[in-house]
């Protein structure tokens, strides 16, 4: 782990002190750990702000070398059915920990993707085994979590990292990796990552893979993905009234990049703001994005929904 070449792992904070930008939360959690008694916790916040990192640090501080046996990390997004809660979680929770730790920890990431049934099952499990096992749940939106679970947890809200904090992280990585980054490029990285450290470090590493000297130019090449460029070209074709070319371009983009319909519609929605059309039209286009995404979820063939969207966009933008 320590020598991972992937920066988000290499620079993942390993102690409370190293965690940046969440001082209030860290202070509180640290107090729990010192008491050796932590309640069930719920971490709420956008991606890349340190939820998983804090959970891993708690595990390390509590269990030291025995973390392996006493700390279970699960991703609810991959295993969101009720049987995961009934089997994996319950099996782990019901056995008492040996050694001199008072309880074991289960970290359940991306809880907002658990089904309602699974959440109901989880609620009972949390109650029944609280003497031997504590839970840390993490999610992006608490609205998808049922109230009985929320009421059993101490809720900690993570905020996106402030620009200064992000800048500090950039500079620290730059120093360690011997990178030269121009001020403009730093600004770009800060704006694109929007307080998400995972995103930031991934971008930074992609830039560094090309050159140790990172300027505005090389930075924007990384930030703007080929997908985004193709989607932009597609939309421009629609504006030019070239429907058939536009849909073929889009199909090609999906196929070449292995993108799903929802990925594409999200990209379109993002690109719409920078289109050269009236604001009124932009809103109508975005409304159609929403409709297309909704029908994709219900339908069987994602591409037809994209085609229908392009046709609507053509209708909206043609005089």
């Amino acid at each position, binding site marked *: 782990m320590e020598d991972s070449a992937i920066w988000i792992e290499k620079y993942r904070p390993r102690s409370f002190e190293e965690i940046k930008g969440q001082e209030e939360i860290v202070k509180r959690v640290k107090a729990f750990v010192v008491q050796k008694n932590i309640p069930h916790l719920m971490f709420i916040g956008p*991606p890349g702000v340190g939820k998983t990192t804090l959970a891993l640090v708690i595990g390390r501080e509590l269990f030291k070398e025995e973390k392996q046996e006493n700390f279970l990390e699960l991703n*609810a*997004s*991959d295993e969101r059915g009720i049987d995961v809660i009934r089997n994996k979680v319950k099996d782990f929770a019901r056995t008492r920990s040996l050694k001199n730790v008072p309880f074991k920890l289960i970290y359940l990431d*991306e809880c907002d993707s658990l089904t309602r049934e699974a959440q109901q099952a989880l609620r009972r499990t949390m109650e029944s085994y609280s003497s031997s096992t504590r839970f840390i749940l993490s999610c992006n939106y608490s609205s998808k979590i049922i109230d009985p679970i929320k009421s059993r947890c101490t809720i900690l809200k993570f905020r996106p990292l402030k620009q200064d904090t992000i800048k500090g992280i950039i500079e620290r990585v730059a120093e360690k990796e011997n990178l030269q980054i121009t001020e403009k490029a730093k600004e770009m990285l800060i704006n694109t990552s929007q307080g998400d450290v995972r995103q930031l470090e*991934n971008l930074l590493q992609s830039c560094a893979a090309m050159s140790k000297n990172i300027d505005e130019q090389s930075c924007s090449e990384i930030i703007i993905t080929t997908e985004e460029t193709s989607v932009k070209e597609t939309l421009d074709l629609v504006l030019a009234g070239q429907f058939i070319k536009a*849909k073929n371009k889009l199909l090609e983009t999906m196929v070449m990049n292995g993108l799903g319909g929802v990925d594409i519609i999200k990209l379109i929605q993002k690109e719409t703001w920078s289109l050269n059309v009236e604001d009124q039209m932009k809103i109508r286009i975005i409304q159609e994005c929403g409709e297309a995404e909704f029908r994709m979820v219900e339908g*069987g063939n994602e591409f*037809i929904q994209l085609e229908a969207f392009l*046709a609507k966009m053509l209708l909206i933008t043609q005089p």
Partner: protein
Amino acid sequence: MKLWTDKYAPAAGIEIPQEEISRLRDAILKKKAIFLAGPTGSGKTSAVYTIAKELNYEVLELNASDVRDKAAIEKIVGSAGLQTSLFAQGKIILIDELEGLNGTEDRGGLITITKILESSRWPIVLTTNEEDDLEWKEVKKQTTIVVFKQVANEPLVDILKRICIKEDIQYEEMTLKTLARRVSGDIRAGINDLYAASIQNKKVDITGIEDRFVEQSILSALTLIFKGKETQMSARIFDSTSLSLDDCFRWVEENLPLEYKNPKDLAKAFDMLSYADVFKGRIMRQQHWHYLVYQNILMSAGVALAKEKKSIVASVYQRPLYPLLVWKANMKSAKKKSIAEKIAKKCHLSKRRALRLFPTYKKMLKNPVFQKELRLNDEEKIYIMS
């Protein structure tokens, strides 16, 4: 208004030799399972319906436009096989277009059919136009085999003539003969072509109606949808093609933008297709077959009525290229998924999030050090470097 192919469905005994019909009727009365083979449009389905009407039996039909996997067949045929009919004397379970069983979507379908043949209380009729396919070997062992022959040219011309008289359409004997010859015994295709040829001015005019080949049926269906604007356009237009409903969908999808140039028409027609697809999704997920009729109507009549005015410009239709591309995409995304899975494991991420962030990771992964750390195999490496 009915589609002509329904209105003039072949009446048993006139177009199909009595002998075959009575063999079929006997088998049905004896509640046997029947394997009914014969070329497209030779009247297989019509014969079953005619006999059912005669005996006051109810027909329970499952055709290629329904998903026919194990679960669906067991649900529909399995339960019907055991229940008695409320209003009719009995039931015929008609599993139409056996060759339309789809390998992946209808997984387990054929095996289930084979099983149900033994246990059903009611006669089951299986139809196919591929009599000799080896796949049917097991099924054939358990069934009475009835084969319909291709309808000859003469009787077909007579049928067409009769329709012309009923519909008050002017015709020339020669033209009808040409029409009949082109469809080589396929009654349904003949009637469809006659409809397409006479739709404009009550006169049979076959210029523009091309010689039939395999895809011909879909082409004339497309012509009717894209050019016409009749309320006669019925949901069953696609049933007259030899393609599955999904394939028909692709044909409409591919050719729609070639045909509808006005953005208003285009948007409206695509909206119809989009809704048709939504219903298809509901069918797939919830196995609600009764939605099929909506899918069918929206993608035919819905598209036809989406345009402001009829078009008379002749067009050349294209074969859909989507299936090929999807296949390619699937191959790609399989690799992408397996790589994303490795990233997810390493970086405390869900697979879903790793997939979403994939473009950035792909750039990072060009570095061999990471490839090694993630233990990418050779194929995955090639994918990353491409």
